[in-house]
């Protein structure tokens, strides 16, 4: 008899959701977290789309430590000396079930893990899992942590983007640099009213999500972000590892430094007090970089399974993690009840993922990572083209100006009309 029906590795979004469902189904479940508390090792940009959390915990709005509801979406094309920003606000993005909130992982993950505990899961923190117990036929039967073996009929692997266990559990390959990005983020504290004003939000419970493309990563694959929290602003850079490996002089730390000093960005955090500098990897390889999701006695969910999507205008991961974790927990509970935790017995997890938004989204956008990786003009040329057009339209110097085409056409021709059509077609198809 195993020590637990299930052991879940990692108390992030996926792990706590899996443990929550297993506990609710009456299974004995151990949730093991290497940080001193859930969330202590985790970082997000970040924003959480709530539809997934609502399915897990319908009344989460009453209890979850959410920072601000996102009521403004901003995207900026950033040239070194200019920025062109789209600001979108709508009633629809505020509707219940469609709304999103900025979050900070230390408070959020502690809350989600406490929900799993309240449902009956046993949480232990401060213990990294060193290894998996795997028998000679490849069946996973628990973990090795703190030098002790803890046996379980099902092991759910949710150890995050830098998964040290995915390869052992389901034979995942080591991720390639082209499949991963690195995020570096700083949190600046500011008074709530100041943040509300800078976000142009209506109240202190509303705020903005802001993505940047162009000069923030020195023309390479990646982007900048800024999210307004209740009493702080999260600001950072995400840069593709392959592009960084082959890149020029700039370091990610210098990219963030220059980004924060950019005249379009600096006013957002002016006067703020730095309270944290964090870093994390982002699995951006998409559908084709995902490992096998089910093994004998093992399931894998969340960032560890590369369940993340970056489309440039939208970045998602936590909602996939929550739903995948939930499905992993439910599938494991069913398999335990049926007495078959083999790969076949657990395969319902994969079936459910395939018929849900998780794998449907990831598959529909499977071309996005490669397209974006090769979309150099988006990171270098287009922000400058837009700057030149806008300067032509808005800058008045008292010399006689021609019609609009005089401002637009030279800029467009600099990048090539054919390239524009090609890129527009590629973006519409892949993003």
């Amino acid at each position, binding site marked *: 008899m195993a020590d637990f029906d299930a052991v879940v590795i990692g108390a992030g979004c996926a792990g706590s959701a899996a443990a929550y469902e297993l506990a609710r189904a009456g299974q004995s479940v151990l949730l093991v977290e290497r940080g001193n508390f859930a969330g202590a090792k985790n970082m997000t940009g970040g924003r959480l789309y709530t539809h997934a959390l609502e399915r897990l915990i319908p009344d989460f709005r009453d209890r979850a430590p959410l920072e601000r509801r996102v009521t403004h979406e901003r995207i900026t094309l950033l040239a070194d000396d200019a920025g062109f920003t789209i600001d979108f606000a709508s009633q629809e993005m505020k509707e219940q079930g469609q709304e999103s909130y900025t979050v900070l992982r230390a408070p959020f993950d502690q809350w989600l893990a406490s929900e799993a505990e309240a449902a009956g899961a046993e949480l232990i923190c401060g213990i990294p899992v060193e290894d998996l117990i795997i028998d000679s036929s490849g069946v996973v039967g628990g973990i090795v942590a703190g030098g002790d073996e803890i046996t379980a009929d099902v092991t759910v692997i949710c150890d995050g983007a830098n998964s040290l266990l995915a390869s052992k559990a389901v034979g995942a390959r080591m991720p390639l640099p082209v499949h991963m990005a690195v995020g570096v983020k700083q949190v600046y504290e500011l008074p709530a009213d100041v943040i509300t004003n800078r976000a142009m939000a209506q109240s202190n419970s509303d705020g903005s999500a802001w993505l940047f493309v162009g000069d923030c990563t020195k023309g390479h694959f990646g982007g900048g972000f800024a999210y307004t929290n209740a009493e702080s602003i999260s600001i950072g850079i995400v840069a593709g590892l392959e592009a960084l490996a082959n890149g020029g002089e700039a*370091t990610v730390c210098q990219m963030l430094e220059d980004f924060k000093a950019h005249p379009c960005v600096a006013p957002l955090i002016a006067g703020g007090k730095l309270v944290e500098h964090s870093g994390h990897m982002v699995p951006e390889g998409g559908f084709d970089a995902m490992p096998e999701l089910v093994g004998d006695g093992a399931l894998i969910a969340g960032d560890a399974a590369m369940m993340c999507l970056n489309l440039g205008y939208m970045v998602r991961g936590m909602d996939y993690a929550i739903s995948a974790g939930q499905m992993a927990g439910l599938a494991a509970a069913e398999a335990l009840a049926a007495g078959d935790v083999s790969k076949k017995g657990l395969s319902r997890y994969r079936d459910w993922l395939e018929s849900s938004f998780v794998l449907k989204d990831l598959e529909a956008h499977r071309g996005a990572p490669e397209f974006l990786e090769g979309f150099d003009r988006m990171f270098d040329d287009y922000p400058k083209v837009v700057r030149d057009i806008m300067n032509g339209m808005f800058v008045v110097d008292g010399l006689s100006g021609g019609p609009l085409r005089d401002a637009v056409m030279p800029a467009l021709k600099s990048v090539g009309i054919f390239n524009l059509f090609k890129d527009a077609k590629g973006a519409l198809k892949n993003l």
Partner: protein
Amino acid sequence: MSMITAELNIDAYLATNKYEVAPESHIVLRDGAAGCDPKEFDKLIRACPAALYRRSEDGIQSFNYEGCLECGTCRIICGDTIVESWNNPDPGCGVEYRFG
């Protein structure tokens, strides 16, 4: 490779974080930092979000695990050319995000 302002400021940034520094490094480099292939080492200089991989003005390469953010970027970006092993820090050790 220049790091201009970032290198001047990064230690102050990391000082805002909460750490419980482990007695030994959880990241082991194959040939020590000084002996690493400079071209591969450049990748780590560019990509480490804590700027822990550095080259001094006289060309000496160094690495200090103490400010590690445990992202794993160095485990991926150079394949197996530089990082020999990357393990989680000892129980209770490493960075502890208060915001995240």
